[in-house]
């Protein structure tokens, strides 16, 4: 190290270059970090959970009229835009600072016209949630602030979200940024994904965290929707993991308790392979089960079968328990 310093001292032009480099680092340098998160592991359906983000912001130049931005990654079914409250306190403000929902479609700064949810999705992603039905919901501080240069201060963000009654396992996510720099450079924002969060609610578990032997899209639908039933044969050992053809064996339960079956192996029940060991079929439940006019389906029970129909795979990888789907809207 001393030899390096000696070498630099010996070269005047190198001294100038080092000084300039340090100046550039000081001027450009700026950071925002989420140092820690206090969040429960689970909550009961319909309850409210609280998360606290401990954030540190460092500045090198002063800035005026900056709004603080906080976004949360949540399941759409929670309707978080209407069911969340976010406030913060900081070393440079007095009292609790309120935040408000940023209306959908509002352009984010330096986002090429994209709104905050779209920009965050493009730049940061969806936290590894495996099912559709997630969303980023963004909030701005109600007030704008002036921040001095070369200061470091702490911000404590308090997030309160009321969850729905649904039985859910989900990877929550958080992003903090400001209304001027947006997500234009990693130094201007921070994100965190503290892991899988569980809601002990009612109905079938919607598991965003773990790969499922069978998935459904949309998550919420009625019998008059087109429903995609997926089969991932590589998740656990099962009798169809190396199958060349996979078929759907379906039973529908109507609102008057009647059951309707379709368990044939033909083109109407044949799944399409779209990736290695991954299959799917798009069905119109009312049509494939020939639901009489005036009746509606309340739920589906289904297996996947081979071409002969003798091998069946259900929820546990064998024929002991069928997959289930309950028709409902948010």
């Amino acid at each position: 190290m001393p030899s390096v310093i000696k070498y630099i001292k010996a070269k005047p032009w190198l001294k100038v270059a080092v000084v300039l480099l340090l100046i550039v680092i000081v001027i450009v340098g700026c950071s925002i970090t989420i140092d820690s998160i206090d969040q429960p592991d689970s909550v009961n359906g319909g309850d409210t959970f609280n998360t606290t983000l401990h954030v540190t912001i460092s500045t090198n130049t002063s800035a005026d009229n900056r709004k603080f931005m906080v976004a949360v990654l949540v399941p759409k079914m929670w309707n978080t835009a209407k069911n969340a409250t976010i406030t913060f306190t900081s070393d440079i403000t007095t009292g609790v600072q309120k935040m408000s929902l940023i209306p959908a479609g509002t352009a984010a700064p330096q986002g090429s016209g994209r709104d905050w949810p779209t920009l965050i999705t493009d730049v940061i992603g969806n936290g590894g949630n495996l099912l559709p039905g997630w969303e980023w919901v963004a909030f701005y501080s109600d007030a704008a602030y002036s921040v001095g240069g070369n200061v470091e201060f702490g911000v404590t963000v308090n997030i309160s979200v009321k969850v729905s009654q649904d039985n859910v396992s989900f990877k929550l996510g958080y992003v903090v940024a400001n209304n001027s720099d947006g997500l234009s450079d990693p130094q201007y924002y921070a994100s965190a994904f503290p892991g899988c969060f569980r809601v002990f609610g009612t109905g079938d578990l919607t598991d965003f965290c773990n790969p499922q032997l069978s998935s459904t899209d949309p998550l919420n639908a009625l019998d008059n929707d087109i429903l995609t039933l997926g089969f991932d044969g590589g998740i656990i050992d099962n009798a169809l993991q190396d199958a060349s053809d996979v078929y759907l064996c379906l039973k529908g339960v109507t609102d008057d308790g009647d059951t309707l079956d379709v368990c044939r192996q033909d083109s109407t029940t044949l799944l399409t392979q779209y990736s290695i060991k991954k299959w799917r079929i798009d069905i119109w439940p009312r049509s494939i089960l020939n639901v009489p006019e005036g009746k509606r389906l309340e739920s589906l029970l289904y297996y996947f079968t081979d071409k002969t129909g003798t091998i069946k795979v259900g929820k546990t990888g064998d024929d002991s328990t069928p997959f289930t789907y309950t028709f409902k809207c948010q």
Partner: protein
Amino acid sequence: MKKISILIPALMLMMFWSCSREKFVVPGEASKSVDGTWKIVKALRNGTDLTSRFDFSHFSITFKDSSYSIDSLVPFAVEKNGTYRLDDPQYPFRMYIKQQDSSEKPIDIQYPFTDGVRSIVISFSPGCTSNTYQYTLQKIN
């Protein structure tokens, strides 16, 4: 030379007199007619393209005058035959469909003309309102 100096101003004067005020009439936008039989060429569910994944070939809808008849084996905004009207025949953005024994139902439409082909783009929710379907229809020749 003297003859030419008289002739040129005279010609210019005649050219000026030959000018007359041109009557410029802005052509009115033609009324859009959806009469004919239409089939589905593209189908989206919540933005996901299902066109090649689901059999939409058995769907057709025929508009004639103020009535429509439907032959559908896919989810659609209506299930039975009935009547329809456009909110604005010149610039239609909404179609009001009234199927038999039912009240009038508004459906958002677009009426683009792309690649020389007229299309109707219909958006609706046959099941949960959170699930939006967008069908692009083109006329069967």
